[in-house]
């Protein structure tokens, strides 16, 4: 047992569901107790999805415990097959169902005899993999299944496209700024005259999977999800892939050059150097920003970076090589990526932290007192407590990190966004600091007492007042005092507060 207040990566089934619901016409059936379909809330609320989340629970209750799921799962699969007519039904086990040890594969086999849809059992172990690993595996499983199916019925499309083309592997819903990143990637490839063959799973249909081998190569923009699929395609169809994340000016150039090399190896004369140079100097403002006086102020400032492996590595490199910021610690909660992570960042930071315990991260930040933090929502709250500004650069995130406006992290526009994010974090911290030195805003204390000296709050009323949330307390205090004054009451008791509330004055 582990005492835990907070976790960075969710349970395995969340990863599976993220993949399933990113595809079009794929329905996931969770084998789970009532209340485990919280994923639907997240997708509907965070992503503000207009469509019903295609996830249904086959509810595990007392009857199931006593008698096994028996026909229940099969019926649920068949029912969804009829109602929604999906291409694929993905049976998703949860932590509860995995300890029941029912033969879910058998249910899948039986259901697929009648169902029009394909039926698969997501192959993930709840107690061994987390959300991100499960997403990676599920994507690979679905890709493998449809490639094999297409091979069997001869519909596989292995002939390469005439012009250079690419598959983008891994972007899925509930990812950090994923939709904006996809748009930016599309733009980048358009600029490079490379056709985007497919993007999976986000917005794709499983039908498209059989044309994956058409592309000249694959890219995996995020380290955590998509790598297994890229490796599978490399092994099966000899498709090369690029797993560099194009976040930051330097890494974007690096990414483009890798593609250039790849294309040359495939016999296509590509020369992107001029494009890189133009984008770097004039289209993106970020390289110029690095040279500007503003950025000079950042030189030598300290920062701590913590998040998933992809974003932490990218931001650490940007801070260190593009902005001249001293990264005291770069850390990640993606333990399986430890080796890769260390290799990538060791040159750009003074220390490395691999942990999924937010207390360790908090203590580390408190001890180091960096001028800014770049992390997840948890680090943002740590920063609030310690009065250190924080830019959010990685999941887990709140709804405000699903912005409506265009905010990619990837590519040349992404580098502008990140430069703003970094600069704003630091200046805000500086402003705060200056305010403190010069005595703060002069409006600070106005709200606390204007009428208060004439009234006496009794102990009960005062303790009640203390319970009222801070942001409205002042207002309520004033209103109650005003109420007492108009009614000629010198002492404020609970009754007075209550009467005030009832009069609608509170």
């Amino acid at each position, binding site marked *: 047992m582990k005492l835990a207040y907070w976790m960075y990566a969710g349970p395995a089934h969340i990863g599976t569901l993220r993949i399933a619901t990113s595809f079009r016409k794929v329905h996931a059936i969770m084998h789970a107790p009532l209340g485990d379909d919280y994923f639907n809330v997240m997708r*509907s609320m965070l992503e503000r999805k207009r469509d019903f989340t295609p996830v249904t629970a086959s509810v595990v209750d007392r009857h199931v415990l006593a008698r096994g799921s028996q026909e229940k799962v099969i019926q649920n699969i068949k029912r969804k097959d009829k109602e929604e007519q999906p291409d694929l039904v993905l049976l998703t086990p949860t932590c509860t169902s995995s300890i029941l040890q029912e033969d879910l594969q058998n249910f899948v086999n039986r259901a697929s005899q009648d169902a029009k849809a394909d039926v698969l059992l997501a192959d993930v172990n709840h107690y061994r993999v987390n959300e991100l690993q499960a997403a990676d595996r599920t994507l690979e499983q679905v890709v493998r299944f449809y490639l094999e199916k297409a091979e069997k019925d001869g519909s596989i499309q292995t002939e390469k496209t005439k012009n250079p083309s690419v598959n983008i592997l891994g972007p899925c819903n509930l990812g950090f700024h994923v939709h904006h990143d996809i748009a930016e990637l599309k733009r980048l490839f358009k600029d490079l005259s490379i056709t985007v063959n497919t993007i999976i799973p986000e917005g794709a249909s499983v039908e498209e999977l059989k044309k994956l081998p058409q592309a000249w190569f694959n890219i995996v923009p995020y380290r955590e999800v998509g790598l297994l699929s890229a490796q599978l395609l490399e092994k099966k169809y000899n498709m090369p892939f690029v797993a560099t994340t194009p976040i930051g000016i330097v890494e974007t150039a690096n990414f483009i050059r890798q593609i250039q090399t790849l294309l040359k190896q495939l016999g296509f004369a590509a020369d992107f150097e001029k494009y890189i140079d133009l984008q770097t100097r004039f289209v993106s403002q970020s390289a110029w920003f690095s040279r500007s006086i503003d950025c000079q102020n950042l030189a030598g400032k300290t920062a701590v970076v913590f998040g998933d492996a992809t974003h932490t590595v990218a931001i650490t490199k940007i801070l260190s090589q593009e902005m001249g910021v001293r990264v005291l610690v770069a850390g990640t909660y993606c333990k399986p990526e430890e080796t890769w992570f260390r290799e990538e960042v060791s040159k750009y930071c003074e220390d490395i932290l691999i942990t999924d315990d937010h207390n360790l991260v908090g203590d580390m930040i408190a001890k180091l007192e960096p001028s800014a933090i770049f992390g997840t929502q948890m680090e943002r709250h740590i920063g609030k407590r310690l009065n250190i500004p924080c830019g959010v650069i990685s999941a887990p995130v709140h709804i405000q990190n699903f912005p409506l406006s265009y905010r990619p992290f990837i590519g040349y526009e992404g580098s502008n966004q990140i430069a703003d994010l970094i600069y704003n974090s630091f200046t805000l911290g500086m402003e705060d600091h200056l305010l403190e030195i010069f005595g703060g805003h002069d409006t600070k204390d106005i709200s606390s007492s204007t009428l208060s000296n004439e009234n006496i709050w009794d102990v009960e009323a005062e303790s009640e007042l203390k319970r009222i949330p801070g942001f409205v307390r002042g207002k309520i205090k004033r209103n109650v005092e005003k109420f007492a004054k108009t009614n000629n009451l010198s002492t404020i008791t609970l009754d007075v507060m209550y009467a005030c509330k009832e009069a609608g004055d509170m």
Partner: protein
Amino acid sequence: MNTEQGSLINSNSITFECETGNYHTFCPISCVAWLYQKIEDSFFLVIGTKTCGYFLQNALGVMIFAEPRYAMAELEEADISAHLNDYMELKRLCTLIKKDRNPSVIFWIGTCTTEIIKMDLEGIAPKLENELGVPIIVARANGLDYAFTQGEDTVLAALAQTFGTKSTISEDNSSTPNLIIFGSVPNTVVYELSNELKTYGIDVKGWLPAKRYTEFPTLNERDFVCGVNPYLSRTATTLMRRRKCQLIGAPFPIGPDGTKAWVEKICSVYNVPTPGLNDREEKAWKSLEPYLQVLRGKSVFFMGDNLLEISLARFFIRCGMSVYEIGIPYLDKRYQGGELALLEKTCQEMGTFLPVIVEKPDNYNQLNRIKDLHPDLVITGMAHANPLEARGINTKWSVEFTFSQIHGFTNAKNILDLICKPLQRQTTFKELGWKNYHTLV
């Protein structure tokens, strides 16, 4: 004073249906969110997996950053396969909690996983309680058996078995039995409801739960108990059977009509008249008039997820709305008897049709019915709210009723505030022609 109630028998009575139970709701462990705030010296330890933790973390949002007095005892593979000793593991964690937080009581919230692997929490608790010197109370608030607010019911039922057992026979036996009210409500609501009863000379002896574990009331046989929340049927049963208390079955104090009926029923048990109560209700309704103007003639559909549905529907009908369907996870017809009777009576008096009550609803079927009926307002969970809005249907998240102050005369306006918002904002959308966001034209 008119104290007769609900005895009118109507030929077209409420229809009860039961569907597949395939609906969206919160896991009952969510009750720790409001209970840890209510019981100020408590600590809640949820013994479950990453799934439980992920739910709490996301459902409770920012609360998690406020150093809450709850945590997960996250089960790992070694716990599941019994390579680790449950007793030793729980001892280790609870010792840590005692050292860091020093609570007056620790609640263990059992989950689906502890049920399936048959972890003997009830057996381990008394032993550990002795060793640690901190009371440990075990509640099985799991998704195998319960929905959302029923989590509170399991916790209060567990408390009801043990709290305040010390006898108070020394007090004069001749006096009328004490009144204990059960149900977790914010302290201001406790104050308000107690005050309503005090007006008629009835002293509430105590509340379950009280602000602090150490302040829980004593409970004697034959004491009167009365609930304020519609989802506390196990607690009621426990108080009656285990503690030999007398349950006052009343409608719940939600809405001015419910509050009046609740006060009236309690007063009738104590045989005290309630002069001025009608005026009190009248006054409350008058202050709600601006809301009622918005609501009259509008229709509502409850998809059902928190067991407050019947009381809310009854209040909304009294406000002049019509209710098509009351979805509800679980209905205890005995515990909610007073409420059901008032619902029927309200429908008759308002001249509206009786709603269908659907227990264990099927969300998929409900969505089809909503499509056909096109109600003015659907009260639903967050999983369906945005997709329904995209289809031009007004929604209100049901969860907000659980987290708002809704009891008593003065809080009725909070409830109406919640449902008027989606209805009122729609008027401008109509003018703008903004509808149907789910299909491309």
